């Protein structure tokens, strides 16, 4: 009897590899191998125990060149935006927590300094951050101000040449392990960004525990109690909310790809499981209801990938608008979490432990749905773009 044709992986079916340049593919393959070798064997345990060896990982990621990879100079690799997206996808196929570490380091903390910082700030921090020797965090959200950061209560007041910061930041990724925090605060004039070494007196970052999502990621509160900084600590090149928003736009772009990594891992795991799992006298994969689910998920994964690669191309041509990033973030995270949940149904009870990655990804994606602009906020951004009416407030 002739053997049935070998199954095709979901993204192979779309032929999306042909849309990716050779160098970007080589970078993606390297990250994929790193995740296979280094992350996959450990991640279930890290998630279970709510821990992450962030310092060691940062060094390894730095050696690879992942941290701030799409920035130019200061020890950064200077890859294309597409390569950065693809790296996020592979990292998040490992775990959203790993990708969060990288997003916050490269696209939030490093990008803020790279884009808006003084030459001294860049020289002091970027090479060490690119190498993973220094970890950064990004403090914008506050306990009472998430989707509406403009209302923030953290204050920076001038005292002679110095700045004195007081306030609380909440839900800050990498907070407790960071060497440097980029903190956004209200001044008498406008919102400004500050580069805060975390050993400055008055700064502390207690970790937030009891999370059910992103357990393999450090999330913290930042407490700023009369933190005194020299005048040179302010990011000189930006004032107003456009500062933090420019950084968020970078990180969101990474999530457009990243979320698909989690979805791909769920779908590939589930297809293998369905092929092996015998129910009644046949494989679960051979039932039409299962195939309908797998086909629909394959379709959404591939559509999301086409959208991501399209946005990647626009980014590399420097034509990517923030509203377009919203399209990608809204769609791809929404579809990724739907895929993760649907995959869980196919795994049955086996789907609820960390033995399989599916529910871990689904839980992680709850955070991804909320941070970097909630789905609702992105709907409002897109709504404004197509109606001309702002409905945020």
């Amino acid at each position, binding site marked *: 009897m002739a053997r049935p044709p*070998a199954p095709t992986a979901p993204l192979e079916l779309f032929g999306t590899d042909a849309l990716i340049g050779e*160098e970007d593919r*080589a*970078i993606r393959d*390297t990250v994929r*191998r*790193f995740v296979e070798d280094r992350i996959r064997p450990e991640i279930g345990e890290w998630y279970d125990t709510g821990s992450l060896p962030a310092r060691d990982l940062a060094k390894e990621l730095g*050696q*690879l*060149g*992942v941290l701030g*990879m799409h920035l130019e100079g200061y020890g950064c*690799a*200077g*890859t294309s935006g597409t*390569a950065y997206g693809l790296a996020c996808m592979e990292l998040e196929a490992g775990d959203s927590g790993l990708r969060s570490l990288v997003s916050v380091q490269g696209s939030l903390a490093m990008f803020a300094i790279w884009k808006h910082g003084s030459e001294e700030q860049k020289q002091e921090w970027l090479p060490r951050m690119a190498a993973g020797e220094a970890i950064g965090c990004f403090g914008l959200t506050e306990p009472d101000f998430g989707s509406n950061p403009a209302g923030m209560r953290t204050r920076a007041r001038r005292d002679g040449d110095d700045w004195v910061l007081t306030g609380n930041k909440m839900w800050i990724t990498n907070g407790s392990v960071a060497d440097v925090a980029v903190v956004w605060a209200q001044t008498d004039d406008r919102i400004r960004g500050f580069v805060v070494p975390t050993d400055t007196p008055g700064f502390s970052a207690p970790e937030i525990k009891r999370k059910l999502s992103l357990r393999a990621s450090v999330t913290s509160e930042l407490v700023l109690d009369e933190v005194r900084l020299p005048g040179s600590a302010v990011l000189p090149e930006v004032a107003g909310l456009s500062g933090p928003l420019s950084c968020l736009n970078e990180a969101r772009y990474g999530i457009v790809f990243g979320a698909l990594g989690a979805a791909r891992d769920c779908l590939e795991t589930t297809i293998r499981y369905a092929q092996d799992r015998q129910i009644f006298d046949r494989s679960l994969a051979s039932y039409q209801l299962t195939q309908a689910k797998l086909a629909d998920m394959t379709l959404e994964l591939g559509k999301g990938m086409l959208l991501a690669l399209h946005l990647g191309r626009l980014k590399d041509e420097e034509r990517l608008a923030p509203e377009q990033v919203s399209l990608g973030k809204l769609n791809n995270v929404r579809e990724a979490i739907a895929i993760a949940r649907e995959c869980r149904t196919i795994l049955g009870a086996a789907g609820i432990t960390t033995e399989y990655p599916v529910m871990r990804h689904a839980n992680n994606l709850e955070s991804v749905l909320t941070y970097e602009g909630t789905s609702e906020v992105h709907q409002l951004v897109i709504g404004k773009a197509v109606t001309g009416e702002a409905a945020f407030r």
Partner: protein
Amino acid sequence: MNIVVCVKYVPDAQAERTFNASDNTTDRENVDGLLSELDEYAVEAALKLVEAGEGEVTVVTVGPDQAADAIKKALQMGADKGVHVKDDAIHGSDAIATSLVLAEAIKKIGSPDLVVTGMASTDGTMGVVPTMLAERLGLPAVTYASELTVDGAKATIRRDGDVSTQTIEATLPALISVTDQINEPRYPSFKGIMAAKKKPVEEWSLADLGVEAGQVGLDAAWTKVEAFAARPPRSQGEIVTDEGDGGKKLAEFLASRKFI
């Protein structure tokens, strides 16, 4: 110190590997290939030596067009330049002919202080090319190194055997083959990946090396694959119902297969 590393492009062991129906040679057309994993250790060993001092790492491969991927991977890891020997006449060459072509290529590259190879290829797994090559180049061959240090004009290796561990010295220039215990090959860094495309790769034919077509290829091979067949699918295992003597039967089965 200048080092030449011999690298081979092999079919991906994860993929379904087979032979060409027409001439019983390894099918390299229809399978994805890559730098032989065992050669990654050789590249890493060479890079470490050069990084600790100075000099250049040149990688050389003998193989079809796609074998350029093996060179590229080594350049991405950090090697300085590549040499790709390709010629239609090489198709079907055995280890003897391959070592001839490699030897001539290495002579043309110059006189390296060290030639480093993997301990075997992951497709043919014969492991004879290193010593043949050393013989042709007139170099001492110290093989299966699981540790390697170079001090001045002296290379010292550790070779782990089943019953003993040997420490062996050779004066440079020398040929060293390394095992998968010697190091942990690095991932190519992104900077390395981007720098690789600017590194020089030379393509040489047999004529460039002064090798006659008749000295290599399938016709000149000392060994040939006469026939091949897929391994039969595994037969169904035996199920023994436990009637209180399950443990005994299990032990008997294991003993019959010489596991205990």
